C-alpha cells in the first residue's frame, strides 16, 4: 500500500463552521452510545471476540469491505489516481474482487466449519503450534503498530486540514475507540464499520457527482485529462501495461495480474485476520459464504468515490490565475506548488462542499480513521487472547477470564498504539516500515493457508518452514531493494524499466513461490498427517455441509458469478 509518511500536508486548508462541529459531535455521541448499548450483549468470549457469530450476510459483508475502507486508504489512493491515473483502479478491482469471491466460495467453508476463532487458530489446527505462534506474533505486532499509524495519520490530517492540536486528536480518537471496543468488542467494531460505510458514501459521493457535472461527463473528462497531462495513458486500465515504460506507474501486466491480482490480493483478503474476522461473525455457513460476495459487489463501486475524484482533480483543479494546478510529490512541495498528491481528496472536498457538507466529509474521514483503529485493536485483542495468551501463557483460564483479558488487551493495545503514534510523530519514516511489515507476512501466509486447505499432503513441518522461509525471503528482498538501488529493483521486478510500485508486486510473488516451494519439499520429506486428522480442515478430507440455500437466488455461487461477470464487463469498458 502507499507510504503513510506521504500524508504530510503543508498548510491549514479550511476551518469548521458550527454546523460542521455539530455533525462531528453527533457522530461521537452515537458511537459512544452504541458501545454502552451493546455491552449488555457482550458477556462471553464468543460474543466479545466474534460478535456472538450472529451477524447476517449483509452486516458481515459491509463490515468486511468497510474494514479495508479506512481514511488512510481513501486519501492515499485518491492521490495515487492523480499520480498514476486510472491504473490505481486495479487495486480495487483485480486486486480485490477475485480474491474476495475465492474467500467466500472456496475458503470460507473451511474457516467456518473448523470453528476457529482466528486465522492463526486455523494454522494451529492444520499445522500445529509453531505455525500458529509465528503467524500470531507477527499479526499482533503489525496490527497494534498499524493502529498507532492510523491514529497519527488522523491527527496529522486534522492538524493540517483544520489546524487541530496533534495530541488532542490522538487522545480523543484513542479514548473513544478504546471505550467502545472495550465495552462491545467485535460487535461494537462491526456496527461502527457499517455506520462508517454509510458515512463515507454520504460524505464523499458528492465529490464525483458534482465533479462529473463540472467536467461535462466522463468523455469530456477523459479529453480534458489528455489535454492537461499531454497523454492518453491516464484513462486506460490495460492498454498501457504491455511494457514498464508505457504507463505512469512503471508496472507490467504480469505484475498486476500475478503479483497484485493473485498473490497480494489473495494474501490480504483471504488470510489477513482483520478482514476475515468480520466474516467469521456470520450467523451460518451460507451467510459466511455470501458476506465476501456482497462485500465484493460494494468494493467494485468504491473507485467512484476514491479514484474518480483523483482523476477529476487532473482536469478541474486550477490555480487562482486560471492555469492548471499541478500537485506534486511531498518532497517537491514549494511556494509555486503548495499542494501534494495526497491532498487531492481534501482539496476536492473543499472545492464542492460548504458548511454542513464539509462537516459530513470530515466526519466521514474521522469515522474512517477511528474504524481503522477499532478494527486493528479488536483483531489484536482476539489474536492476543486466543493465540498468544490462551495458547502459550494461560491455557486453562475460564471463559470469563478470557473476556476480561480481551477488554484489558484492548485498553493496553490502545496505549501501545498511542506510544506508536508519538513515536511516528517524531520519526515519520517509521510509518513506511510499519506498512512494509504487512507485505513481509501476507504473501507467504497465503501460501501456507491455501496449501493447508487444498493439499492433504502438506505436513506440519512443511507449513512452518514454508511460512518462515517465505517471510524471511520477503524481508531480505525488501532490504535488498531498499539499499540496492535500481539494479536490485531490476533484478526483483525483471526489468530495468521497473519503478518502485512494481517491487511490492514481484516481491510478493517470489516470496509466495518460495513459501509454496519450501512447503512442498519439506512436506514430501516428512511423514504425512493421517487423513482422519484432516477432516474439517482440508479439501478432499472434508464433507462440506449443505449451506441451506434453496433456489438459485439464495446460492452464493450464483451471486459470485454475477459479480465476476460485472467485474469483467467493467474491465472491458475501461480497457
Amino acid at each position, binding site marked *: 500500500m502507499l507510504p503513510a509518511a506521504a500524508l504530510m500536508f503543508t498548510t491549514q486548508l479550511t476551518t469548521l463552521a458550527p454546523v460542521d462541529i455539530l455533525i462531528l459531535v453527533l457522530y461521537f455521541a*452515537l458511537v459512544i452510545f452504541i458501545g454502552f448499548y451493546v455491552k449488555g450483549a457482550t458477556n462471553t468470549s464468543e460474543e466479545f471476540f466474534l460478535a456472538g457469530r450472529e451477524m447476517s450476510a449483509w*452486516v458481515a459483508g459491509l463490515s468486511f469491505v468497510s474494514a479495508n475502507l479506512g481514511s488512510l486508504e481513501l486519501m492515499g489512493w485518491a492521490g495515487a489516481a492523480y499520480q498514476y491515473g486510472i491504473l490505481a483502479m486495479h487495486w480495487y478491482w483485480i486486486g480485490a474482487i477475485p480474491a474476495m469471491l475465492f474467500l467466500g466460495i472456496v475458503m470460507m467453508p473451511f474457516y467456518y466449519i473448523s470453528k476457529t476463532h482466528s486465522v492463526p487458530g486455523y494454522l494451529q489446527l492444520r499445522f500445529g503450534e509453531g505455525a500458529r505462534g509465528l503467524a500470531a506474533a507477527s499479526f499482533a505486532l503489525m496490527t497494534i503498530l498499524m493502529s498507532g499509524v492510523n491514529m497519527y495519520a488522523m491527527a496529522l490530517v486534522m492538524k493540517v486540514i483544520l489546524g487541530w492540536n496533534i495530541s488532542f486528536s490522538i487522545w480523543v480518537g484513542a479514548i473513544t475507540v478504546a471505550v467502545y471496543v472495550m465495552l462491545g468488542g467485535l460487535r461494537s467494531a462491526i456496527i461502527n464499520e457499517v455506520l462508517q460505510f454509510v458515512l463515507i458514501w454520504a460524505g464523499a459521493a458528492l465529490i464525483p457527482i458534482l465533479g462529473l457535472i463540472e467536467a461535462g461527463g466522463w468523455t469530456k473528462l477523459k479529453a480534458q485529462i489528455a489535454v492537461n497531462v499531454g497523454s492518453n495513458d491516464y484513462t486506460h486500465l490495460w492498454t498501457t501495461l504491455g511494457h514498464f515504460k508505457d504507463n505512469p506507474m512503471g508496472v507490467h501486466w504480469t505484475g498486476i495480474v500475478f503479483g497484485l491480482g493473485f498473490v497480494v490480493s489473495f494474501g490480504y483478503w483471504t488470510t489477513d485476520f482483520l478482514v476475515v474476522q468480520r466474516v467469521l461473525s456470520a450467523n451460518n455457513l451460507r451467510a459466511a459464504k455470501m458476506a465476501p460476495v456482497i462485500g465484493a459487489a460494494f468494493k467494485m463501486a468504491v473507485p467512484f468515490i476514491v479514484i474518480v475524484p483523483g482523476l477529476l482533480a487532473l482536469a478541474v483543479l486550477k490555480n487562482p490565475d486560471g492555469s492548471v494546478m499541478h500537485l506534486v510529490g511531498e518532497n517537491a512541495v514549494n511556494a509555486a506548488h503548495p499542494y501534494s498528491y495526497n491532498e487531492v481528496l481534501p482539496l476536492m472536498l473543499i472545492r464542492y462542499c460548504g458548511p454542513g457538507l464539509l462537516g459530513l466529509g470530515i466526519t466521514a474521514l474521522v469515522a474512517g480513521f477511528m474504524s481503522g483503529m477499532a478494527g486493528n485493536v479488536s483483531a489484536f485483542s482476539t489474536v492476543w487472547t486466543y493465540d498468544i495468551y490462551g495458547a502459550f501463557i494461560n491455557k486453562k483460564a475460564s471463559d470469563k477470564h478470557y473476556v476480561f483479558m480481551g477488554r484489558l488487551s484492548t485498553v493496553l493495545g490502545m496505549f501501545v498504539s498511542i506510544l506508536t503514534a508519538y513515536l511516528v510523530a517524531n520519526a515519520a519514516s517509521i510509518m513506511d516500515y510499519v506498512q512494509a511489515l504487512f507485505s513481509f507476512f501476507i504473501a507467504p501466509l497465503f501460501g501456507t493457508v491455501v496449501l493447508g486447505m487444498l493439499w492433504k499432503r502438506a505436513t506440519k513441518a512443511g507449513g512452518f518452514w514454508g511460512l518462515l522461509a517465505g517471510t524471511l525471503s520477503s524481508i531480505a528482498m525488501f532490504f535488498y531493494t531498499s539499499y540496492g538501488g535500481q539494479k536490485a529493483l531490476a533484478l526483483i521486478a525483471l526489468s530495468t524499466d521497473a519503478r518502485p510500485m512494481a517491487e511490492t508486486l514481484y516481491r510478493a510473488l517470489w516470496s509466495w513461490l518460495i513459501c509454496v516451494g519450501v512447503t512442498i519439499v519439506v512436506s514430501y520429506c516428512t511423514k504425512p498427517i493421517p487423513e482422519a486428522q484432516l477432516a474439517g480442515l482440508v479439501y478432499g478430507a472434508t464433507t462440506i455441509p449443505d449451506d441451506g440455500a434453496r433456489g438459485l437466488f439464495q446460492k452464493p455461487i450464483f451471486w459470485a458469478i454475477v459479480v465476476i461477470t460485472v467485474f469483467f464487463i467493467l474491465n472491458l469498458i475501461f480497457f
Partner: protein
Amino acid sequence: MAEGTGRGERLSIWFFVGMLTLVYGAVLAPYGAWEWFGNHEAPTVLNNLHPTFWWGCLMLVFGLFYTLKFRPSKD
C-alpha cells in the same frame, strides 16, 4: 431479534444507520434551505445547484425510510 446488536436487544444496526442519516438530513436540509433562500451560499464550485439542501433532503428520506422500517417493535 434486533439484527447486529445482540440477542435480546431491541435496536437493530439498521436502525442506527437510519437514525444517523435522519439526524444529519434534519441538520443539512434546513441549513441548505437557509443558504439557498437567504442568499448565504458558501463560495464553492457549483453552489448554484444548492448541494447542501438537496443532499440533506436525500439523507432525510433515506434516514426516514430506515428508521421507520427498522424501528424497535413492541414485542
